[in-house]
């Protein structure tokens, strides 16, 4: 393996690589992100390669295992180049036909193409599918094109052009100025201007400084950081190297969530290769600049995604990591008391793009105050689940309807939850709001790390609020009282509402606790924890009142407030429900109407899950 002695050395290597690369040559790119792997992508790859070898096709056609393409709902995904034919939901049994028809004869297999649910049309090209067409994929652009475990491939996809440019032409102050001009704001949630943070750190008169990548993506329902680390780990390393140069750091840390084994493995491989090629370590590209990166694995504690708790988790040899009061902010006193820049994965991955294309390019995308693109994890009751990158300012409605393809079935959209457990619910009537930091805050929600969960009429908002709060309550580190006790008491009140044992005074009590938590908690975990509760109370008051006054759950979710019965017109007496009931609450003779004993029924829903005739009624 080669080590680049200089920038010129690297550029010559890139040129020779590109010369050998024939864009018109046929190759297959298979999405091997966590989502597609879970749907069996690796089995497909194995079978495909076996058949290709058997037929001797492997001499002309190569396969490439790439990171996440984003369209997880349709996985495993496979793209045949140069035509860019996208095959969806590919199974092992399809491998043979793909080799004989498409790879050998260039024929498209209709049934594997994406079918547009509204028109029923089959679409062959990736970029013609509405899900991709409406997006602006900058950070995710290279995910489907490169092998994430190959630095050479990253170089072939314009990797390290930005670092070369920075090392050759720019002074640290100029890098910071460029980032400031670009309008880049922290993508971790709060949206603090990145350039300003770097500048504060740079101004500190300390010899030792650090840069940290926060990859402790703890929000349930979020996987964009994971996908970047899995699909393009080098972009994060390149961004951190540029950042380190700007602020004057020679050491960096990446704090990765332990639940992401694949991201961790790709990151480790990337670090190893970057060191070997001379793009990390001492004397990077012969310029005399030193920078080293270490990986820290998280231990499954949500609070460690909070920057000061994260610092304490890296620092601590032992004991519990805890958030600490600010100021001082990490940029002045961070890791081991030294000035430290902490940015999110997406922020770091954006840096090389800005340095390569220039601040005006980035500044031209987005809204007045929010620049660039944002990646959302679109999940929940939505047709096209997946990763979506859009310019800031796109309306929430367009994202959900055009890219997400709307709600499956004949159900109505009810709300969209953004920002994870710290965010809030945006109701259907407010879906026109443009997606940027300010507008989302105004609606009571937040950008957060980009989670976006769509809910339909069968979702109970009290249950949703309870779900998020039980999450934050469980993850509260316990250091400060407003968060520890406040979340516990608030959860108790919500549970009483869900159980039908509450009065209207519960609502004002919840509001009171919410404002104490917002004002008195030490870190964002506690300050923002009331958000899902407060926004659902604000926008779905009627639903709360139905639970409190009428003791009913309109969505049919809260167990204490619903009853199960069997619709005599639809029941065929097949006996499936009788077998599935764990409480032996169902009785009936074969082929005769079955009945549920409400006294014995635990409302677990097992009968409804197993009934083939939709005969189970929930009221």
């Amino acid at each position, binding site marked *: 393996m080669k080590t680049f002695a200089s920038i010129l050395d690297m550029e010559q290597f890139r040129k020779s690589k590109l010369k050998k690369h024939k864009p018109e040559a046929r190759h297959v790119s298979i999405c091997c992100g966590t*989502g597609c792997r*879970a749907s069996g992508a690796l089995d497909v790859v194995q079978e495909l390669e076996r058949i290709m070898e058997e037929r001797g096709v492997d001499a002309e056609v190569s396969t490439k295992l790439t990171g996440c393409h984003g369209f997880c709902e349709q996985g495993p995904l496979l793209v045949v180049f140069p035509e860019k034919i996208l095959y969806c939901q590919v199974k092992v049994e399809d491998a043979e036909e793909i080799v004989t028809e498409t790879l050998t004869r260039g024929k498209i297999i209709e049934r594997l193409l994406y079918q547009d649910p509204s028109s029923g049309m089959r679409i062959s090209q990736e970029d013609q599918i509405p899900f991709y067409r409406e997006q602006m994929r900058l950070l995710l652009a290279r995910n489907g094109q490169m092998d994430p475990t190959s630095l050479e491939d990253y170089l072939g996809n314009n990797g390290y052009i930005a670092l070369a440019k920075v090392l050759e032409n720019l002074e640290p102050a100029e890098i910071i100025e460029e980032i400031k001009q670009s309008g880049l704001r922290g993508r971790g949630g709060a949206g603090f201007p990145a350039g300003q943070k770097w500048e504060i750190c740079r101004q500190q008169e300390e010899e030792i400084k650090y840069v940290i990548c926060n990859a402790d993506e703890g929000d349930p329902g979020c996987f964009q950081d994971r996908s970047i680390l899995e699909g393009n780990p080098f972009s994060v390393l390149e961004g951190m190297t540029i950042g380190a140069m700007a602020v004057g750091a020679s050491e960096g840390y990446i704090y990765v969530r332990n639940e992401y084994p694949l991201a961790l493995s790709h990151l480790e491989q990337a670090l190893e290769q970057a060191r070997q090629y001379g793009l990390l370590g001492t004397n990077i590209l012969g310029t005399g600049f030193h920078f080293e990166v270490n990986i820290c694995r998280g*231990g*499954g504690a949500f609070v460690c995604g909070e920057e000061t708790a994260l610092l304490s988790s890296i620092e601590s040899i*032992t004991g519990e990591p805890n958030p600490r009061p600010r100021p001082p902010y990490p940029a002045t006193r961070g890791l081991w008391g030294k000035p430290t820049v902490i940015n999110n994965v997406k922020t770091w991955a954006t840096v090389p793009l800005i340095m390569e294309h220039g601040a005006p390019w980035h500044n031209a995308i987005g809204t007045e105050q929010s620049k660039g693109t944002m990646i959302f994890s679109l999940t929940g009751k939505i047709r096209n689940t997946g990763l979506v990158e859009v310019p800031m300012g796109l309306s929430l409605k367009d994202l959900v309807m055009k890219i997400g393809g709307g709600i499956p079935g004949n159900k109505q959209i009810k709300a969209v939850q953004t920002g*994870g457990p710290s965010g809030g619910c945006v109701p259907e009537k407010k879906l026109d709001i443009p997606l940027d930091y300010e507008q989302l805050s105004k609606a009571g929600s937040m950008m957060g790390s980009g989670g976006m969960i769509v809910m339909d009429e069968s979702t109970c908002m009290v249950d949703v609020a309870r*779900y998020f709060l039980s*999450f934050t309550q469980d993850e509260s580190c316990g250091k400060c009282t407003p968060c520890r006790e406040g979340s516990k008491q608030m959860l108790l009140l919500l549970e009483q509402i869900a159980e039908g044992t509450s009065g209207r005074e519960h609502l004002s009590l919840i509001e009171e606790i919410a404002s104490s938590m917002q004002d008195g908690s030490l870190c964002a975990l506690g300050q923002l924890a009331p958000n899902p509760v407060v926004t659902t109370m604000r926008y779905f008051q009627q639903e709360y009142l139905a639970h409190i006054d009428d003791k009913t759950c309109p969505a049919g979710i809260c167990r204490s407030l619903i009853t199960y019965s069997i619709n005599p017109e639809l029941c065929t007496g097949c006996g499936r429900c009788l077998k599935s009931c764990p409480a032996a609450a169902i009785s009936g003779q074969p082929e005769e109407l079955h009945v549920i004993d409400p006294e014995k029924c635990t409302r*677990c829903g097992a009968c409804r*899950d197993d009934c083939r005739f939709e005969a189970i009624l929930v009221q």
Partner: protein
Amino acid sequence: MSIERKEIQPIIEKYRGQTTGHVALLQDIQKEYRYLPREALEQVSQQLDIPLSQLYSMATFYNSFNLEPRGRHEIHVCMGTACHVRGAPRILDRLSQKLGVGPGETTEDGEYTLETVNCVGACALGPLVTFDGRYYGQLTPGKAEKLTGRKP
């Protein structure tokens, strides 16, 4: 259960003198034994001069550590938001009912450990569980039940 010194020693050596990364140390031990045996923590405490109470403080703070031996098979039910709205609680109920254990517990015969996880990030496939590290998505309670291959 006594533990083999030869297994723990290389792990301790790897972290000797390091000023950071003791979460990773515990993770390495857990990878070896699939839980954190008291004997192993005692060894670490003695050899690296860390109070045992501090190691337990970490082991109980972070969700990913287990202080009890695990079953031969581990089932993790994803309780992330996307899975939640698509019916994860019912999957958990059904598995719990079938195995006769609650989340965090191991069946008496040591065959299965049932766990919940906050989110594995494969939201498109929800509700989903991981069974010995393998993902099983788009589950119904019925399908989930079949994974265990045992009668309730």
